[in-house]
C-alpha cells in the first residue's frame, strides 16, 4: 500500500517534466509561401523549434534520384520516417518540393545542403552532408550506407493549401 502511495506521490515530480501547455502550443502548424523559391534553392523555416527544409528540386535532380539507389540503406522508405503520402521515391506530395526536418537522424545535428555533384568527393551525387559525424543523405533525404545515421531524414506532416502555399504540421485530406 505504501509503495502504491509513493508511486502516486511521484506524479507531480514526473509529470512536471513533460512539455508544458505553453511548449505544446508553440508547436502549432505554420504556413509557408513558396512562390519566391527558385528551382534548386533551399529555405529553412522553424516549426516546433526544429529547422524544416523546403527544397525546390530541378528535373535533373529528380531524374538523378533513381541512379544511386543501390547505395542507399532504405531506398523504399520502409522505416516510418514519413507520413504515408510521402512514402515514395521523392518522399513528398509534389515531387518538386521536398520538405524535411533538417535534423540528422544520428544525433540531432544539422546536415548541410550540398546539391552540386562531386562537391563532397568525386562520386558525390548531391544531397545532404552532416558535418558532425559525416552522415550523408540523397536529395530525397534518404540515408546512404556506411554512415552513422541509421535511417532516412524525417518528413513532417504537411499539406498544400494551394499550389504554392504549404502548411507544415497539419495533415491534409488532399490525397
Amino acid at each position, binding site marked *: 500500500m505504501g509503495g502504491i502511495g509513493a508511486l502516486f506521490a511521484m506524479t507531480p515530480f514526473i509529470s512536471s517534466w513533460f512539455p508544458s501547455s505553453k511548449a505544446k502550443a508553440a508547436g502549432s502548424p505554420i504556413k509557408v509561401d513558396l512562390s519566391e523559391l527558385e528551382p534548386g534553392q533551399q529555405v529553412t523555416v522553424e516549426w516546433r*523549434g*526544429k529547422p524544416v527544409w523546403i527544397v525546390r528540386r530541378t528535373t535533373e535532380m529528380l531524374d538523378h534520384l533513381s541512379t544511386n539507389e543501390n547505395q542507399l540503406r532504405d531506398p523504399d522508405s520502409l522505416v516510418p520516417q514519413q507520413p504515408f503520402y510521402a512514402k515514395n521515391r521523392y518522399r513528398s506530395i509534389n515531387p518538386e518540393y521536398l520538405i524535411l526536418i533538417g535534423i540528422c537522424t544520428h*544525433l540531432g*545535428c544539422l546536415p548541410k545542403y550540398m546539391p552540386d555533384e562531386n562537391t563532397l568527393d568525386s562520386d558525390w551525387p548531391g544531397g545532404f552532408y552532416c558535418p558532425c559525424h559525416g552522415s550523408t543523405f540523397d536529395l530525397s533525404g534518404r540515408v546512404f550506407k556506411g554512415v552513422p545515421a541509421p535511417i532516412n531524414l524525417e518528413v513532417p506532416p504537411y499539406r498544400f493549401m494551394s499550389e504554392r502555399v504549404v502548411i507544415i504540421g497539419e495533415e491534409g485530406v488532399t490525397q
Partner: protein
Amino acid sequence: MSSLLQWLDDRFPLVSTWKKHASEYYVPKNLNFFYYFGFLLLFVLCNQLITGLWLTMFYTPSADRAFDSVQYIMRDVNFGWLLRYLHSTGASLIFVASYIHLFKGLLYGSYQKPRELVWLLGTGLLVLLLIEAFFGYLLPWGQMSYWGAQVITSLFSVIPYIGEGLTSWIRGDYQVSNATLQRFFAFHVVGIPLLLLFFILLHLVSLRQVGSNNPEGIEIKKHLNKQGNPLDGLPFHPYYTSKDFVGLLVFLIVFFSIVFFAPEMGGCFLEVENLVAANPLVTPEHITPVWYTAPFYTMLRVIPDKLSGVITMSCAILILFFIPWLDQSPVRSMRYKGKFSIVALSLFSVSFILLGFLGTVRITPARLCVARICTAIYFAYFILMPIYSRFEKHKTVPDRILDK
C-alpha cells in the same frame, strides 16, 4: 576548553570520530605520488562548491539571459572572471585528479577484496561527476553547450518504443530549450552536489573500515605491534595530513598557473565555439566534446550504428564496476603481477588517452581505424582480465613492507 570538549563528546562521538578517521587511522607508510589525489579531489570539490555558490549569485538560468549573464560575470562583476575561471579550471582538474586516482586503483589493485565497496562507490562518484559536469556544461548556453546537450539527450531516443517520449520528457520540450536549461541548473547546483557529498561520505567511511591499500599491495593489518597498531602503518594525522599539504602546495602552483595564464587551455578547458550564443538552427561545423568525456564520445562515433554506439559507450563506464570480480590475480599490485597484466594496463592506458585525443579532432578513415582498435583494446582489457590475471606467472609478495 577541555570541559567544552567533554560536554560535546558526551552528546556527539567527536573524539572517537577524530581518532577513527585521523589520529588513529593507520595508513601504510609507503604511500607514493599517486596517493595525493584523493585529498586533492576533496580540495577541488570544495573549490567547486564555493566558487559555484558565488557564480549562482550572478548567473541567470534562462535561455534568454544565461549567455549574457556569463558575459556579465566575466566583464562587470568584480573578480567575476576569477570566480568563473576557478570553477571551470577546477572542473577540468577534478577529472585529471579522478582519472589519476582511478589509475592508481588499477595499478595497485585497490579494488580487490576487501575494498570492493570502496571501488564501487568511487566509480559511482565518477558517474555522478560526469553527470554533474554534463549539466553544468549547458549553463553558459553557448553553441557547444547547446549542441552537446542536444546530442547527449538524443541518446535516449534510441531506446525502442519509449525513446522519443523519454527524450522530450527529459528536455521538457521538443528540443533543448529554456525548460531543459532550468532543470539542468537545478540538478547542477542542488541535486547532484548533494548526492556527490553523500557518496563521498560513504566512500570515506567504507575506506576507514578496510584501510588504505598501498603500492606494494601488502595488507598492513596482518602485522600488529603490542598496542594492536599496524607495524608498517603511520597515523593519518599528523603524518599524512602534513604530507598531503605539501602535495596541495604543488597542486596549487599548477592550478593557479592555469587559472591565471591559460584558463582556456587552448580551447581544451573552455571551447572557442562556446563564445557564440546557443542557436537551435545552426549546428557548429565541428562538435567537439569537452576533453574529459572525449574517450567515451569517440566510442560513440566510431560505431556505425546508433543503438550499438550508445550501448558501447554506456558499457565503457559500467564495466568499471565489475573490475573487483574480473581481476582473478592473487596479488594486488602491478609490482608483483605478471607480464600480461603490465602489458594490458599499459595498452589500456595508451588507448584511453588516444581515444580522448581522437574525440576532439576531425575524424578521417585512418583515425577511424585507430579509434576502433583503441575501443577494442579498451574492452579487451576488461573482458580478458579473468584469463590473463589468473593464468599468468606472478612474483611472490613479501610479508612486510620493506625499507629500500
